[in-house]
Structures are given as structure tokens and as C-alpha cells.
């Protein structure tokens, strides 16, 4: 219903406007904004709930007062260790990478005008992962250098896919990306066969994405990077709603092409950092954008997409940890197992062609 009342500028009101028209337009402009606020508030609540479930419940229950006492520095035998060394870092990392995947997925999908062109489908995540694994197995990198390698890998991959697909993006970009992802995946698998020790945790983290091996130094690196990137993102993302209209319309409305390119570059960097921290968690970037858009009444919302991504990762990590007793699945298994059927459903109902 709100689609009929899309916001229009005052100059389109026409010559013989009646007094009610102004109120009508004002209402039509306010409604999406109110809905956006509602969506963000709801998603934030959901994220807090998921975060609380992840940190407080599970096989070891921590009460809310205890939670704050431990954060304040109190030593409770057992609980302190479990919260500070396992549950809390996993949940925090889940929120951070979920935000990064969600936001960058939404940027990809809306600036390339294709819901299938998310970084996890067109090979950007796998590119970061391949470079990271190469760094570990061949060069012996860790810490900052590893993140840098992942960023370089993602940048090279996305450039290669862009160049190989040729101008005009569209379905060619998606097909070339799927092929590139297949090659890079086999490169990752080859590198693992060369690794001295078959480390199941390492493999799973870099192939499917996992929060199992989280530590505070990783989170500190992520927070520093976030502090650097978020202001830049906020500045660049202002033009996204216009860039969504297409390159020509955006140029006509005074948004230069480099802004879209810079935003895409930033999205690539975000994905790469998230992959370096937690591996290519499948389908989060792909699912977050369309979900947030559907909640927001068909309008794109970057912040909403980020929150959806964070909720997905934290909730999926809780499921992964406690769904089957005694088995600690990596989070990517859960998102892949549930995300892929969703993609199939989208294909079967023809939703993917609507906005491409």
C-alpha cells in the first residue's frame, strides 16, 4: 500500500493542488521514516535478545546480575572463565562480522542492482579466504598481516570478476563470480592438502566460517578497523539511495560515479576483514539485504541489513553450539544449511528476477 505513496518532491504537486495534498504528501514522506525507525528498533531488540541468549543460556547458564558482576571484574569460579574466554568473545565477534557481512552484502546488491550479486555468491569471500589460507600455509602469516592478505585477496578477486565479466554487470557478473568462486575453493582445498598438519578447526574456519577459535586480540583489531571504516562508510553511503537508481540517473542527480565505486571498494574491504576474523560464513551477506528490505517495506536500509546480519550470525552460532549435544558445529554449517534452501525458494518463486 505504501508503494502507491512513494515520496515525491514538492514540484510534482501540480498546479491545482488542494489543501489536503500537502498533508497527504507529508504523511507519505513520514511513513517510511517511521517504519525505518520501527524496523531498526525491532532489529536492535532482536539482536539484544540473541546476544543475551548466546551469552547467558546454553549448557552453562549465567544469570543477568552475575553477567554484570563479571563484566565489572568480579571472579566467579567457572562462570568468569566461560563467559570471558568463550561465550562473550564469540558473541561479540558474531555481532561484528554479522554487521560487516550484512552491510557489505546490501551495498553490493543495491549498487550492482542484482540481489544475487552478494559477495559470498560472486566469489569475494572465497577470494579473501584463499588469500588468507595461502598466507597461513605458505607464508606463515598471522594477526594484522593475515587481515591484510585477506583484504588483498578480496580486492584482487573482485577486480578480476569485474574485468572478466565485462561492462554492464548483470547476470554475467554472477556467472563469472560463481565460476571464480569454484576455482578459488579448489585452490583453498589444495592448500589444505599441502598443510603439514590437518587441522580440522583451521580448515572449517576458512572453508565454512566459524567463531569457535575466537580471542580478544582479534576483536581488538576488528574494533580498531571499525572505528576507522564506519565514519567513511556513513559518508559514502549517503549517496547509495540515489546510486540505486542506476548510473545514468545518479550522474544526472549529481552523484559522481566514483562514489559508488568507492562504496563498493569499502564493501570489499569489510567482507575481507570479516572473513579474516571468522571465515566466509555462508549466505549471511546474501540474506541480510533482501530480508532488511522486505521488513522495511521495499526500501533499502544499510543499518537494517547490518543488524539482520548480526542477528543471523549470533542466532546461528547459538544453534551451531547447542543444537546437537556434545558437538560444536561451526556457524557456517548452520547458515549454509538453512540459507541455501532459502536461496532455492527465492529462485523457485521467481523473486530473484524482480529487481535485477
Amino acid at each position: 500500500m505504501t508503494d502507491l505513496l512513494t515520496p515525491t518532491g514538492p514540484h510534482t504537486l501540480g498546479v491545482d493542488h488542494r489543501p489536503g495534498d500537502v498533508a497527504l504528501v507529508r504523511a507519505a514522506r513520514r511513513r517510511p521514516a517511521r517504519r525505518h525507525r520501527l524496523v531498526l528498533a525491532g532489529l536492535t531488540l532482536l539482536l539484544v535478545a540473541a546476544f543475551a541468549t548466546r551469552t547467558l543460556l546454553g549448557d552453562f547458564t549465567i544469570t543477568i546480575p552475575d553477567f554484570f558482576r563479571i563484566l565489572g571484574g568480579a571472579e566467579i569460579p567457572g562462570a568468569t572463565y566461560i563467559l570471558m574466554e568463550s561465550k562473550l568473545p564469540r558473541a561479540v565477534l558474531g555481532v561484528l562480522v554479522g554487521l560487516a557481512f550484512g552491510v557489505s552484502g546490501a551495498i553490493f546488491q543495491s549498487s550492482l542492482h542484482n540481489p544475487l550479486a552478494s559477495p559470498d555468491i560472486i566469489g569475494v569471500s572465497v577470494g579473501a579466504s584463499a588469500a588468507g589460507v595461502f598466507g597461513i600455509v605458505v607464508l606463515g602469516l598471522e594477526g594484522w598481516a593475515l587481515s591484510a592478505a585477506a583484504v588483498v585477496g578480496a580486492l584482487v578477486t573482485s577486480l578480476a570478476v569485474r574485468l572478466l565479466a565485462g561492462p554492464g554487470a548483470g547476470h554475467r557478473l554472477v556467472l563469472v563470480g560463481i565460476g571464480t568462486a569454484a576455482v578459488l575453493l579448489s585452490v583453498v582445498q589444495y592448500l589444505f592438502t599441502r598443510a603439514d598438519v590437518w587441522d580440522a578447526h583451521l580448515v572449517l574456519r576458512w572453508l565454512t566460517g566459524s567463531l569457535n577459535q575466537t580471542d580478544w586480540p582479534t576483536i581488538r583489531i576488528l574494533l580498531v578497523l571499525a572505528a576507522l571504516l564506519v565514519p567513511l562508510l556513513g559518508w559514502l553511503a549517503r549517496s547509495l539511495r540515489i546510486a540505486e537508481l542506476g548510473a545514468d540517473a545518479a550522474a544526472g542527480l549529481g552523484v559522481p560515479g566514483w562514489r559508488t565505486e568507492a562504496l563498493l571498494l569499502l564493501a570489499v574491504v569489510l567482507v575481507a576483514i570479516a572473513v579474516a576474523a571468522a571465515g566466509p560464513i555462508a549466505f549471511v551477506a546474501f540474506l541480510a539485504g533482501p530480508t532488511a528490505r522486505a521488513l522495511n517495506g521495499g526500501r533499502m536500509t544499510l543499518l537494517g541489513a547490518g543488524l539482520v546480519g548480526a542477528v543471523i550470525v549470533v542466532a546461528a552460532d547459538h544453534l551451531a553450539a547447542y543444537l546437537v549435544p556434545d558437538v560444536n558445529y561451526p556457524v557456517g554449517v548452520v547458515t549454509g544449511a538453512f540459507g541455501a534452501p532459502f536461496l532455492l525458494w527465492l529462485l523457485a518463486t521467481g523473486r530473484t528476477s524482480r529487481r535485477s
Partner: protein
Amino acid sequence: MTQVAPAGTATWPSRTGSEEQQSVRDRRPARVLVLVLGLLVLAAAASVLVGSRGVAPAVVLQPDHPLHPIVQARGVRTLVGLAVGGALGLAGALLQGLTRNPLADPGILGVNAGAGLAMVVAIAVVGLSDLSGYVWFGFAGAAGAMVLVHLVASCGRDGATPVKIAIAGAAITAAATSWTSAMLLTDRRTMEVFRTWQVGTIGGRSLDVLLTCLPFLAAGVLLGLASARLLDALALGEDLARGLGRRIWRDRLVVGTAATLLAGTATALAGPVAFVGLAVPHAIRALAGPAHTHLLGLSMLGGAVLTLAADVVGRVVLPPSEVQVGIMTALVGVPVLVLLVRRGRTGGLG
């Protein structure tokens, strides 16, 4: 029948040209056959002789020579490569004809991942440990993935476009991979069996395993080669094929069964070897024309050539380790995919 077939392959740019090409094309398949057979002999010889330890050709004829065991091991490996490559090449040609889709390939359609998941279920849950037992699960998984991809892709407004098929295949692959790793994590023994299978290799398979698979491969090859005329008719489109007196669903079932037998067995034997089924039929089509009477047999031989060549190159390219054949074929196959995509006519969602 063969006269009308070339014009009917509407999904890729038709290579049929002017009148003077008509007479040249009639001799082309024979020349290509000679070429492919020559390459096959070369690749097989290289596969026996080349490796981390080179072997002189004379050793092959001397059973007492100290290096003869190497020749024997490489001989088995070459036979496995021939079987797997031939099966994948033929399966790719069958699938491309069946779906009238230039991107059809066991790897892209998620057949490999489906077979892998089913085999892990067989090893972990049912407790089978030898190939003759779990090869059936490989078939079931391959067939299931193929049917699911086509069902999903043909829903919706504009039917099974190449893009939708590719994405449905990627989604099936992602889901199957996730379920597979979920099962492997709970079971170390299965993980050890599966770890070597996962990369796609034709090395380290014994002759018994190959013999177990041979009946399935033979059935698939017979059924596949016999369906050349069905595919030529199907290439004209459903309506025309029906007008020519074909029973569409029966024909599709025959071709689909052949492709499943071939792709499922090859995957069970060697693991996921992608892009052979994609690249080879396109190369053959460019060389010999699109009539399935030539295309199917030539694709089978070409698949064997590509697989053996990829295996030989993989043995020597990064010493001291060995690059598995599945990885090498992916490196060869993706440029082909990019070329196909760039040449256009794979659209639908764009």
C-alpha cells in the same frame, strides 16, 4: 535427422554458416576423431611415463626392470583417468543436450556435491566402507541433486534459464557441503575416508575399485551413445520433437539416467572433478559441429584426454607435491566458462 540438427541448438550461437562450409563440415568429424585419438594416445603415454620419477618407454616392456612397479601403478591410474574423464565428458554432452543449456556440467549442477553428501551418509550412518556399497548412494545423490536443480530452476516466470540453473546448482552445492561438513565433524573416521576423496583425484585407486564401477560406466556409455538421435530431436524444441514422433518424457528419462550413471560413478570413483563436462563438449562442438551423433563419442574421448592431461600436468607443475586433477580441471575449465558467458546468450536474469 542429422541435417536439421545443427540449426536447432538454439541456446548457443550457431556455428552453421554459408553453403561452402556445408561440404567441409561433413569431413570435419572424421578429422577431429583422428586428432582426438592421437591426443588420447599421447596423453595416455605421458600419464604412464611422466611424473615425479620419469620412466623410459623401454621399461614398459621389461617386467623385471626395477621401475616396472611404477609403470603398473601409473597404468592403473591412467585407466581410472580414462574412465572418469570419458564418463564426465559424455555426461556433460548429454546434460547440455538434455537441458539445452550451455552451462550444464556435473560440477555446476551440484551433482558432485549431492553425490558427496549421499556417500558421506552411506559411510557415516549406514556404515558402508567399500565403494561397491556406497556407489549406489553416489547415484542417488547425483540423481537427487540433478532433479532438484531442474525442478527449482524451471519454477517461476521464465523457466530454466542458464543463470537460474547455475545459481540453483551453487545453492545445492552450498547446502550439501554444509550438511556434509556437519556430518563429518561428528565422525572422525568418516572424515579420514572422505578427506582424500574431497579434492578430486584419480591417483591411489586400486584396479578392483575400477572394476566395480565398470558395469555402471558401460551401461551409462551404451545408453548415452544410443541416445544421440533423441538429443538431436530434443534440440529442436519440445513441440518439434513431439511432431517428429518422439515421446519427450521417455527420452528425457533415458538421457537423464545415462548422465546420472556416468556422473555419479565418476564422482564416486574420483571425487568432485568439475568443468570437464563443461569445457570438452564446447570445444568439440566448435571443432566438429553440433550434431550429437559425433558430439557424444568425441566428447567422451575428449574428456579422457583433458583429464589425463590435467593429471599429468598436475604431477609435474608444483614439485614435490602433486596438484589433484579436480583442481587442475577447475583451472582449465573456468576460462572456458568465462568465454561462454562473455560470448553472451546465457542470459535470462540479467
